[in-house]
């Protein structure tokens, strides 16, 4: 992978991984309006507590401020961004144009995703692009960066630098296929990976066994995803209505046993801290990705209580 002197993109995130330190990332969803101050506010809240923050890209097919300008705003506020890019809304021309632009604006962490289907969002009549899929996208970024080539094969003088990320769902179907899919992403050129939020830690550990058996943890930096729960409602919702989510009954029961409100918030944070500590011990887990959806203010406390402060500074 990266040597001390030759980084792929030289981002804060990449350097932290490279130095063998446990990385912490957060998530920031831009607002459904032209109010840029919302993103700035979230950046200020998370700065210093995470090494980089994901900026979502029209998440759940709902229109929000685009991830590139949001990433720029966040970085202007001193926090490194991980720009998410889906395959749903852009064709390969628009993607490459945005990627060149991202580089020129100092955004170098890019997370490649397929994208939630239009039918989930607020514009279900839109034409889904899906010119490329996530694996094509990863490959395209790698070729732009390392081969200095556009997807069509044309060469470019100045190539963009990216630290390429992807997502994976250790609990999705077909279960046995998940490590194959991760291999495909590694082959395509992914540098780091964030999982969907984990509630079933034993099942995740079993998946990591398979991953380690194939040595994949040495070929890609794996970050365990986590979402702190505010109450039993959130737990039940994710268990029953979000595809691919595995929320064990004992977690639902634990949250149900606490009164909704400050008590359940505290319990949710406590649970998150416990899980982070447990996940940090799993061999092959290089970091944790905290997705505190619309609860970004909980992140500083969680990171602190999990013993992950202060965040490392790298050259």
């Amino acid at each position, binding site marked *: 992978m990266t040597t001390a002197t030759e980084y792929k993109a030289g981002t804060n995130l990449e350097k932290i991984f490279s130095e063998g330190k446990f990385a912490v990332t957060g998530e920031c969803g831009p607002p459904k309006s032209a109010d840029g101050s919302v993103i700035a506010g979230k950046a200020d809240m998370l700065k210093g507590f995470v090494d980089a923050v994901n900026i979502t890209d029209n998440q759940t097919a709902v229109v929000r401020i685009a991830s590139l300008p949001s990433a720029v705003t966040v970085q202007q506020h001193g926090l490194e961004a991980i720009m998410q890019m889906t*395959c*749903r809304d852009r064709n*390969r021309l628009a993607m490459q144009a945005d990627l060149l632009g991202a580089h020129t604006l100092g955004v170098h962490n890019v997370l490649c995703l*397929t*994208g*939630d*289907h239009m*039918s*989930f969002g607020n514009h279900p009549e839109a034409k*889904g692009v*899906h*010119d*490329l*899929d*996530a*694996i*094509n996208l990863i*490959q395209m970024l790698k070729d732009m960066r390392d081969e200095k080539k556009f*997807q069509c094969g044309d060469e470019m003088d100045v190539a963009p630098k990216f630290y390429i990320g992807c*997502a*994976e*769902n250790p609990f*999705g*179907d*077909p279960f046995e*296929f998940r490590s*194959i*899919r991760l*291999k*495909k992403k590694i*082959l*395509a050129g992914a540098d780091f990976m964030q999982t*969907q939020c984990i509630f079933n830690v034993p099942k995740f550990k079993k998946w990591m066994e398979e991953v380690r058996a194939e040595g994949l943890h040495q070929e890609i930096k794996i970050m365990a995803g986590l979402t702190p729960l505010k109450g039993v409602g959130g737990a039940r919702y994710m268990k029953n209505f979000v*595809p*691919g989510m595995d929320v064990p009954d004992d977690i639902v029961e634990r949250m149900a046993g606490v009164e909704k409100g400050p008590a359940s918030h505290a319990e949710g944070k406590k649970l998150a801290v416990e899980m982070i500590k447990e996940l940090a011990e799993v061999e092959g887990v290089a970091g944790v990705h905290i997705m505190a959806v619309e609860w970004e203010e909980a992140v500083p406390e969680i990171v602190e209580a999990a013993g992950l402060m202060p965040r490392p500074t790298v050259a």
Partner: protein
Amino acid sequence: MITAERKPLDEILALVGDKKKVLVAGCDTCVAICLTGGEKEAEILASELRIKAQQEATGAEVEHTAAIRQCEWEYLDMIADKVGEADIVVSMACGIGIQSMAEKFSPKIVVPAVNTNMLGMPQEHAVWLERCGACGDCVIGETAGICPVVRCSKSLMNGPCGGSHDGLCEVTGPEKEEIECAWALIWERLKEQGREDLMIKNRAPKKWNLSSSGGPRKMVREEAKPV
């Protein structure tokens, strides 16, 4: 084959407007097989339009006919007389047939009574499932005979995506019915065939220019053109 579904009656009535001599034209090939627009269905629609005309005292006269196949000029010759007598033709054929009628009998107004919806397969009697995307660059030799363009909701070349669960797609149909995850099916069948290597292979992006994205397509068989 090509399947179509009849438009809501209100839409058809709006297209017919105040025309007085209406001819409902069925097609006895694809749309007859999917029980939407054959002669039988044309007769039914004509009866409905007459009932409506009676109720609203529009004075419209509605007849029906059917072509063996509406997309072939020679078969359209056979119904030319009836078309000639009509003020408007309500075609129940697929989009191809409707356009052929419109072209052959131009400037006669020809309107669609159906929405052509897919290249479908009758899974069982009276149930059709979309199977082919007519993408012009077929890859199903590598995906165990399952089309990822049209059976995967995101047309992934390297699926499944993270939304696949229990062999089902994250997307449900218009009536919330389950949709199978094409890539889960592909994986299962490739396993059965002992061809897991095809799952690991990273497939290049699709050449969408070979599909209708590249503009309306044309096919010519030089060797078969009349001398």
